[in-house]
C-alpha cells in the first residue's frame, strides 16, 4: 500500500506542475520478447522525477502529446518514447548484457549490489552467456568468458569430470590452491552438482579484495552462483521445458605412424608346425607372423603382404587358421571409441504472487560415454521458495538434491587400457572392427583371446595359458566387460531462513544451512581378467567405500541501508558458525579372491585391507561489509572478517581478512555525451588461510591394518610441523577503469592487479635425509601481477539485426616464487608432481622463477648445442628448466548475432604459453607408434632404414669437449636412447592453443503464426561443442584438456560434440 501511496503523491505533484493538455497515460514496459519488465523507472525527459512501473510492468503518468518518456532500469537499455495520441502505450525496452553500471554482483551470504558500487573487477556471467550451448560442466561453460580465468578442462570421455579453474595464476607451494564455488550462499565442493539451467548468473570474484567476505576459504577467489527465482509479472504459466541431445566423437588424437606393424622384430617370422602344437595350427605351417608379444610397433613395413593375424591362433572363431593382408589401420585408435550420446532435459515451474514465490526444477542428464560400458545418470531437483508471512517477516527455503551414478573406468594414467595402449604400447596394424567382433572369444579353458599373446615359439602344451593369455594387454572390449567401477553420489544442500524487516533501513536474517554428500563406490575386477593376461598386474578383486561429508552453517545477518542527504550507506554485519564432519569407510580384498568371481570383502585371499577416516572441523566468524556512496558517483566499500578456526593452534586461533576499496564514476561529473559510463576504481584486500585439519600439532602415529604374526606396525610420521605455525596472508591490490561509449555500444574495462602470498602455511617437501619428507610451516613469498582486460561492442544494434561482441584477455605478467624459505637454508626448490616419478620432467617450484616449473632430466647443452656421446645419444642434464606450467595469456572471444528470429552465438578461447610433459609421447616414441618414428630423414630415406643404407635419424651437436658431432643414428636406438639417457626435451610441449569451443544457432519458432496458444515461446538450437581446435602448438593433444598439472600420462582424446536443443516456455 505504501508504494501506491507514494506513487499517488507523485502523480499529484505532476498534475500540479503540468499544463492544461496533459492527460493520464497508461503504459506497459516490455522486453524484446514481449515479457513485461517490473520496476522500470519512467521519467518525462527533462523532469527530475518519474514513476516506477509496478510488478506487472504497468505505469501511469501525466503527459501530453510530444512529451518524451525515458525508460530506464536495472539491466535495461535507456529507451526513449514519444507520446502520441494514444492513452495506452507499450514501450519496448531492450535488456542489456553486462553493459552499463547496472549489473548485479553477488558476494558472500547472498549480498547483492550494483556493479556501480563495487570497487573490484567482479565479472558477471549471465545465464544466457553461460549456457551458450547448455554446457553440463560449469568450469567449461566459463571458458573464455571471464578475464583472468584459465579453465583446465578434461576430455569428455571422462564422464563426470569437473576439470579445474585458475584465477589470476596460481598461489601456494602445492599443485594449486583451488577456488571456492558458492551457490546461493552454500559452499559447493563439486561445481557440477547443479543444474546449469537453474543458474541466473555467475559472479567471478578474483583475488582477496573481492572475496574477503568468505575469509580463508576464499583466498583463491570465488565463483558465486545465484539460482533463478520466480519473478512476478511473467507471461504464461511459468513452465519452462528444455530438451537437449548431443553426440560426442573423438576429435584430437596423437599422430601415429602408419607404415610399420607391431612387435619388436623388424621382419615377419616363419611359422613351422611342430608336434605338440594344436592340430588346427597345421593350416598355418609355413606362413609368416609378426612379433605379437612385444607391445611396440617396430615391426615389418605394412605393404599388404600375407601374414598370420593374432586371432588366427585361437580356435572357434571365423578367422581361426586364416591369414590376412598386413595393411595400415590408420583409424584403429579412433575406431575404438563409441559415439557418446547425452540427453539433457529439464523442466522448471515458477510462480510468484504478491507475497509468495516459488520455483521448482527437475533436471535429468543421461549420458552414454565414449569409453565402452561407461555411463552417467544424473538427476537434479531444486526448490526455491519464499513467503512474506507478514509485510516484515519473510521465510524462505532453498533446497537442492543431486543424485548421480557414474559407471565405467576413466583411468587416464600410464598403461590404462585405452590411451595407455593406443598411444604408448600398441600394434599399429590392429583392426578394431575384428577386435570388437572377437571380444568374447575364449580358449577351451576360458582364457580370453588377446592381440598381445606370445609368439608360437612359446607354446607349451603343458601350460597353454602362457601362450594364449595376453602378455600385457587384453582385448580392449573384453577388458571393459570385466572391470566394473560404479560411483554413486547423493548430495543435498540449501538453507532455510527467516528475515525480518525491523525498519525500512534495517533488516535481520537468520539462516540454517546444510550441505551433505554421500558417496558410495565399488569396483569389481573379474577372475577372468586375472587369468586373461600374464603381466597386466590385474588380480581379481573387490573394493568398496562409503563416505559422508556434512557441513552445517548457522548464520546471522543484519543489514542496514540508509540514505542521508547525499550519502547512501549500506552496511552488513554477520556471524557464521560452521561445523564440518567427514567420515568414511573403505575395504578392499588383498592378493586375489578365494572363490572366483565372488565379490565380497570376506572372499579376500589374504587379510583384507580396511580403512576408516574421520575429520572434524569448525570455525566461527564475524564479519562486516559495507559501502558509502556520495551522490551515487563516489563510493567506498570495505570488508572485515575475523575467523576463529579449530585447525589453528589455540594460542593463535583467529585470523583476519580484510578489504577496502573506492570507486569514482567520473562520467557523472564529466557529462560528456559520447561517454555513457566511466568509472575509476581501486581496491586492496588480504585473506589469510588455515592450515588443515589435524595438521597441528602433528606427529600423530597411525596403526597399520595388517599384522605380522600378531605384531602390529606403526610408522614414524613423515611430516614435521613448525610449532610456531600460523595462518598467514595472501594480498592483492588492483586499480581499474570501466568505460562505456556511445550509449553503451562500445566498452572496455582494464584492471591492473598486483599481489603476493606471504608466509603461506604450507607443506614444503623437504629432503628425506632429514628423516622427514615435508615440513608444515609458514614459508616463502610469491609475487604476482597482471592485467584483466574486457571489451565489448555492438557494431550493429538495430531493430532486426543485433550484433554483439565480447572479448576477454588476461595477462599474467608475473607469478614468481621469490623465496621458498626464509630460514636461511638453501631449500630453493620444492618438488610437486611427477608423471613418471622424478625420472620424467616433473613440476617444481624454484626460487627466482615463475611458479610451477617443468623441470628435470633433459639434454645437456654447451653454448646451446646438445651434447652427444660416442653412440650418438644425447647426454643427460638432470637440471633442465623447461618453463612454467602456467600460460602467460588467456582469453576469449564471444559474438552474438541476432537477426529476426535467428540468433548465432560463438565462443572461442585461447591461451599462450605454459608447458607440459607428455609421457604418452615418450613411450609412444620409445615403442615406435608416433608419427615421428617413421618419417624420412634429410637424405629422403626412411629413418627406420639401417644407417649404412642411408637411413637413421640425423643428429647434430657437440661432444663433451665442444667439438662438432654430426651423424646418423638408427631410429630405434635414437628413440630408445632418449629414454635410456633420460633426455626428454622432445616430449615437453607448449600449452598454447586457440579453440572454437561453443557455437550455437538458435531460431525462435513463429509459434504464434502457427496458431499455437498453449506455449509462449519456443527456441530450437543447433549446438556444437569444441567444433574446431583452430591452433595448437602440439598436434597430438587438445592442450585445453591436459589431465595433470605437469602434463599427461595417458590423456584421453579430445572430443567434438554436435547437438540440438529445444526450449519451450509455457
Amino acid at each position, binding site marked *: 500500500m505504501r508504494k501506491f501511496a507514494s506513487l499517488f503523491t507523485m502523480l499529484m505533484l505532476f498534475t500540479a506542475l503540468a499544463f492544461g493538455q496533459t492527460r493520464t497515460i497508461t503504459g506497459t514496459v516490455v522486453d524484446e520478447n514481449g515479457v513485461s519488465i517490473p520496476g522500470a523507472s519512467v521519467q518525462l525527459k527533462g523532469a527530475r522525477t518519474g514513476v516506477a512501473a509496478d510488478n506487472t510492468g504497468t505505469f501511469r503518468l501525466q503527459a501530453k502529446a510530444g512529451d518524451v518518456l525515458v525508460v530506464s532500469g536495472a539491466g535495461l537499455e535507456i529507451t526513449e518514447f514519444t507520446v502520441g495520441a494514444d492513452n495506452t502505450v507499450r514501450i519496448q525496452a531492450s535488456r542489456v548484457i553486462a553493459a552499463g553500471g547496472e549489473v548485479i554482483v553477488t558476494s558472500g551470504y547472498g549480498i547483492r549490489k550494483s556493479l556501480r558500487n563495487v570497487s573490484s573487477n567482479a565479472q558477471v556471467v549471465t545465464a544466457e552467456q553461460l549456457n551458450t550451448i547448455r554446457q553440463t560442466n560449469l568450469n567449461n561453460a566459463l571458458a573464455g568468458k571471464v578475464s583472468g580465468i584459465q579453465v583446465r578442462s578434461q576430455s569428455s570421455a571422462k564422464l563426470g569430470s569437473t576439470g579445474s579453474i585458475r584465477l589470476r595464476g596460481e598461489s601456494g607451494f602445492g599443485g594449486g590452491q583451488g577456488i571456492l564455488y558458492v551457490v546461493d550462499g552454500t559452499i559447493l565442493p563439486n561445481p557440477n552438482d547443479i543444474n546449469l539451467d537453474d543458474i541466473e548468473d555467475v559472479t567471478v570474484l578474483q583475488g582477496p579484495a573481492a572475496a574477503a567476505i568468505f575469509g580463508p576459504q576464499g583466498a583463491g577467489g570465488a565463483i558465486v552462483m545465484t539460482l533463478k527465482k520466480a519473478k512476478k509479472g511473467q507471461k504464461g504459466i511459468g513452465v519452462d521445458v528444455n530438451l537437449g541431445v548431443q553426440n560426442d566423437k573423438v576429435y584430437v588424437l596423437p599422430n601415429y605412424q602408419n607404415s610399420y606393424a607391431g612387435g*619388436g622384430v623388424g621382419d615377419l617370422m616363419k611359422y613351422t608346425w611342430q608336434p605338440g602344437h594344436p592340430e588346427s595350427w597345421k593350416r598355418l605351417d609355413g606362413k609368416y607372423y609378426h612379433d605379437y608379444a*612385444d607391445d611396440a610397433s617396430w615391426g615389418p613395413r605394412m605393404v599388404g603382404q600375407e601374414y598370420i593375424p593374432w586371432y588366427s591362433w585361437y580356435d572357434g572363431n571365423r578367422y581361426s587358421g586364416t591369414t590376412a593382408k598386413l595393411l595400415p589401420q590408420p583409424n584403429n585408435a579412433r575406431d575404438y571409441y563409441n559415439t557418446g550420446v547425452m540427453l539433457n532435459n529439464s523442466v522448471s515451474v515458477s510462480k510468484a504472487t504478491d507475497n509468495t514465490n516459488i520455483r521448482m526444477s527437475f533436471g535429468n542428464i543421461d549420458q552414454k560415454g565414449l569409453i565402452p560400458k561407461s555411463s552417467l545418470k544424473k538427476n537434479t531437483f531444486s526448490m526455491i521458495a519464499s513467503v512474506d*508471512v*507478514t509485510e*516484515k517477516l519473510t521465510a524462505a527455503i532453498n533446497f537442492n538434491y543431486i543424485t548421480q551414478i557414474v559407471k565405467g573406468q576413466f583411468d587416464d594414467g600410464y598403461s590404462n587400457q585405452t590411451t595407455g595402449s593406443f598411444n604408448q604400447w600398441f600394434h599399429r596394424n590392429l583392426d578394431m572392427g575384428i577386435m570388437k567382433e572377437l571380444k568374447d572369444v575364449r580358449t577351451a579353458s576360458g582364457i580370453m583371446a588377446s592381440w598381445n599373446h606370445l609368439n608360437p615359439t*612359446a607354446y607349451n602344451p603343458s601350460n597353454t595359458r*602362457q601362450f594364449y593369455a595376453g602378455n600385457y594387454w587384453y582385448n580392449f572390449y573384453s577388458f571393459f566387460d570385466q572391470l566394473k567401477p560404479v560411483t554413486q553420489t547423493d548430495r543435498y544442500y540449501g538453507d532455510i531462513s527467516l528475515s525480518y524487516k*525491523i525498519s525500512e533501513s534495517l533488516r535481520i536474517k537468520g539462516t540454517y544451512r546444510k550441505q551433505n554428500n554421500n558417496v558410495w563406490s565399488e569396483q569389481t575386477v573379474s577372475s577372468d581378467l586375472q587369468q586373461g593376461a*600374464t603381466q597386466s*598386474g*590385474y588380480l581379481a578383486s573387490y573394493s568398496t567405500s562409503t563416505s559422508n561429508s556434512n557441513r552445517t552453517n548457522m548464520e*546471522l545477518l*543484519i543489514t542496514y541501508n540508509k540514505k542521508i542527504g547525499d550519502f547512501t550507506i549500506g552496511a552488513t554485519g554477520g*556471524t557464521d558458525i560452521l561445523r564440518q564432519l567427514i567420515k568414511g569407510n573403505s575395504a578392499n580384498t*588383498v*592378493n586375489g579372491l578365494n572363490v572366483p568371481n565372488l565379490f565380497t570383502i570376506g572372499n579376500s585371499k589374504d587379510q583384507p585391507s580396511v580403512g*576408516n*577416516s*574421520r575429520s*572434524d*572441523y569448525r570455525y*566461527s566468524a564475524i564479519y562486516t561489509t559495507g559501502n558509502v556512496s556520495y551522490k551515487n558517483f563516489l563510493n567506498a566499500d570495505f570488508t572485515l572478517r575475523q575467523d*576463529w578456526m*579449530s585447525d589453528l593452534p*589455540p594460542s593463535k586461533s583467529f585470523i583476519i581478512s580484510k578489504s577496502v576499496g573506492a570507486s569514482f564514476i567520473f562520467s557523472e561529473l564529466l557529462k560528456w555525451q559520447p561517454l555513457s559510463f566511466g568509472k575509476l576504481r581501486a581496491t586492496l584486500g588480504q585473506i589469510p588461510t588455515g592450515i588443515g*585439519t*589435524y595438521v597441528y600439532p602433528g606427529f*600423530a*602415529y597411525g*596403526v597399520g591394518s595388517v599384522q*605380522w*604374526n600378531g*605384531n*602390529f*606396525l*606403526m*610408522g*614414524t610420521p*613423515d611430516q614435521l610441523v613448525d610449532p610456531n605455525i600460523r595462518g598467514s596472508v595472501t594480498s592483492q591490490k588492483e586499480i581499474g577503469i570501466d568505460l562505456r561509449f556511445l550509449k553503451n555500444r562500445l566498452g572496455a574495462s582494464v584492471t591492473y592487479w598486483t599481489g603476493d602470498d606471504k608466509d603461506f602455511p604450507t607443506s614444503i617437501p*623437504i*629432503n*628425506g*635425509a*632429514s*628423516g*622427514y*619428507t615435508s615440513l608444515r610451516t609458514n614459508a616463502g613469498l610469491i609475487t604476482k601481477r597482471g592485467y584483466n582486460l574486457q571489451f565489448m561492442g555492438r557494431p550493429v544494434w538495430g531493430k532486426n539485426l543485433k550484433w554483439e561482441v565480447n572479448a576477454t584477455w588476461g595477462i599474467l605478467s608475473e607469478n614468481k616464487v621469490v623465496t621458498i624459505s626464509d630460514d636461511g637454508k*638453501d*631449500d630453493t626448490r*620444492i618438488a610437486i608432481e611427477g608423471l613418471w616419478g*622424478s625420472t620424467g620432467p616433473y613440476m617444481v617450484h624454484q626460487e627466482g622463477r615463475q611458479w610451477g616449473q617443468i623441470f628435470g*632430466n633433459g639434454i645437456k647443452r654447451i653454448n646451446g648445442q646438445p651434447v652427444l656421446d660416442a*653412440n650418438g645419444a644425447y*647426454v643427460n642434464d*638432470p*637440471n633442465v628448466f623447461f618453463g612454467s606450467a602456467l600460460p602467460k595469456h588467456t582469453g576469449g572471444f564471444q559474438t552474438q548475432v541476432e537477426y529476426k528470429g535467428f540468433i548465432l552465438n560463438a565462443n572461442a578461447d585461447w591461451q599462450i604459453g605454459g608447458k607440459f610433459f607428455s609421457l604418452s609421447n615418450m613411450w609412444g616414441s620409445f615403442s615406435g607408434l608416433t608419427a615421428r618414428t617413421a618419417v624420412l630423414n634429410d637424405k629422403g630415406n626412411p629413418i627406420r632404414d639401417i644407417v649404412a643404407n642411408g637411413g637413421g635419424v640425423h643428429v647434430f651437436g657437440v661432444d663433451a669437449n665442444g667439438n662438432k658431432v654430426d651423424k646418423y643414428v638408427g631410429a*630405434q636406438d635414437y628413440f*630408445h636412447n632418449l629414454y*635410456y639417457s*633420460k633426455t626428454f626435451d622432445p616430449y615437453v610441449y607448449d600449452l598454447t592453443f586457440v579453440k572454437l569451443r561453443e557455437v550455437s544457432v538458435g531460431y525462435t519458432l513463429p509459434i504464434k503464426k502457427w496458431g499455437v496458444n498453449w506455449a509462449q515461446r519456443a527456441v530450437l538450437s543447433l549446438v556444437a561443442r569444441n567444433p574446431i581446435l583452430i591452433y595448437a602448438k602440439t598436434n597430438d593433444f587438445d592442450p585445453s584438456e591436459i589431465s595433470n598439472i605437469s602434463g599427461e600420462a595417458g590423456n584421453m582424446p579430445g572430443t567434438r560434440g554436435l547437438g540440438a536443443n529445444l526450449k519451450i516456455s509455457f
Partner: protein
Amino acid sequence: MLSSTLKEMTMRNFSIQKTILIPIAFGILLTGCKRYSSDFGDTNVNPAATTSPILSALLTNVEAGIGGYGAQTRGGLYCQYFSETQYTDVSLYSIPQVSFEGEYSGSLNDLQNIINTNTSNNMTQLARILKAYIFSTITDRWGDVPYSQALKGDITPAFDKQENIYRGCMQELTQAVAAFNTSSSISGDVLYGGDVAKWKKMANTLRMRLAIQVSKRFPASNAWAAGEFRAALADAGGSITANTDNFEVKYPGGNFRSPWYAMYETRKDYGESDRMVATVGALGDGRQSAFGSSNQGVPYGRVRGFVDPWTQANPNWARILSDANRQQNSSVVLVSAAETHLLRAEAADRGWTTENMNALYQVGIAVSFAQWGLSAPDAAYYSQSGVALATAAGTGANIRNIATQQYIAAYPDGLRGWSIWRRTGFPVLTPAPDAVNASRQIPRRYTYGTTSYATNTTAVTAAASAIGGDTQDTKVWWDQ
C-alpha cells in the same frame, strides 16, 4: 486460519521487538562468537592416531621391510646374478638415477625414533645395529651420502665422506654390542625374537663385513680395518657361525610375502642370468638347483629386441630361485654363517688373522650349501682349480676363489654380490654387450637421485664434485 493467527501474533510483538530485537541480535552475535570462537575443545584431535610412538610397532615396521635390501634387482643386474627379460635398460646401464631419501624418512627414521625415545636400552642397541646395516647398504650404492647430519630434522643435511660413514657404522656396531644388558626387554622383534645373543652375533659379523669391504684402502694387517676385523672376531658375543643364527627375514606369507614370490605374481621381468648359471656351472656347483627354476639362464645385457623373442622361444628360462625357494613364506637372508666363514678365510688370506684359512673356507662353502638345504659337496668340488686355495694364507693370493665363493654364497642378495665384485674384481665380469652408457662399463655406483637435486641442491652439488663427478663410473671411496 493458522497464518492469520501467526500474522496477528507477530504483528503484536513487533513494537516490542523493534526496541528489543536489535540489542538481542547483537548480543547473540557477540556472545555466540565468544562462546564458539576461542575454544573448540578436542575438535582438532585426530581420532585415528596416537601421539606417542609404540616402539615395538616401529621395530616391526622396519623389520617387515628390511628383506627388501636382500632382494634389490639393480645390484643383482650390475653383478650379473640376474638378467632383464623384456625391458633391459638397467642391465644396459642406462643412468641409475635412484633416490635414497625414502630410506631415510622410512626405516632409518623409525630406528632413529626408537633410539631417541630410548625407553628400553636393548631396543636402542638393536635399532643402532639395524641403522648401521641400512646405512652401509646406502653408502655402498651412492658413496658419500648424508650421515652425521641426517635424521635430525635438518632439512638440508650435508653429505659425509664414505670413510666417515664406515667409521661411524663400525663404531655404532661396537658400542651397541657392548651396551646390551640383560635387564631390558625387546618386543616387536620379528627377526630374532628379542634374542640379544643373536643380535650380538649379527653385529659382529656385520662389523667384519664392513672391515673387509674397506680392505682396498686399508690393506695392512696393522691398519685400522684389520684391527676392527680382529676386534669383531674376538668379541665375546661371537659371530654368526650356524645357519640357525642367520640374519634373515622369515616371511609369514599372506599380507607379508617374500619379495621374490611377489615379483613373479603378475610379472616376469627378471631371470637368473646366463652368466651366473655359467659361473656356478663351471664349478659343477649344486647350488644352482636352488638359484634358479631351471638351468637355462637368460642372456645378459642384450637389447629388448633380442631378449624378448629369446624368452618366448625358451619359455622355461630360469626364474630367480627355484620354485621351492620362492614361496610366499620363503626367507630372505641378509647376513649369514657362510659369510662369516668366508670373510674369516679372506682375513686369513690377507694376513689379518692367523686362522686356518682352508678350514674356514671349506666350512663356509658347506654352510652355504646347507643354507639352501643341500648337503655339502664332495671332496672333488673343493679340489678343483676354481675352488681350491692353492697358495698359503697371508699373501692375499687366494682372493679370486674366496671372492667367487663369497659372491656365490651371497646370491640372490645383489647388493652384496655387486659390492664383492667391485671390491675384488672377482668373479671377472664382462660388461653387457649392448650397453648404452657412454663408457660401456659396469656401473660403479648409483648417481644421485633427482630428489637430492630438488631438495638439497647445495649439499648434493658439493658432494658430486667432491667424489669427482656424479656419474655411474665414479668409484666410491672403498673402490678406489
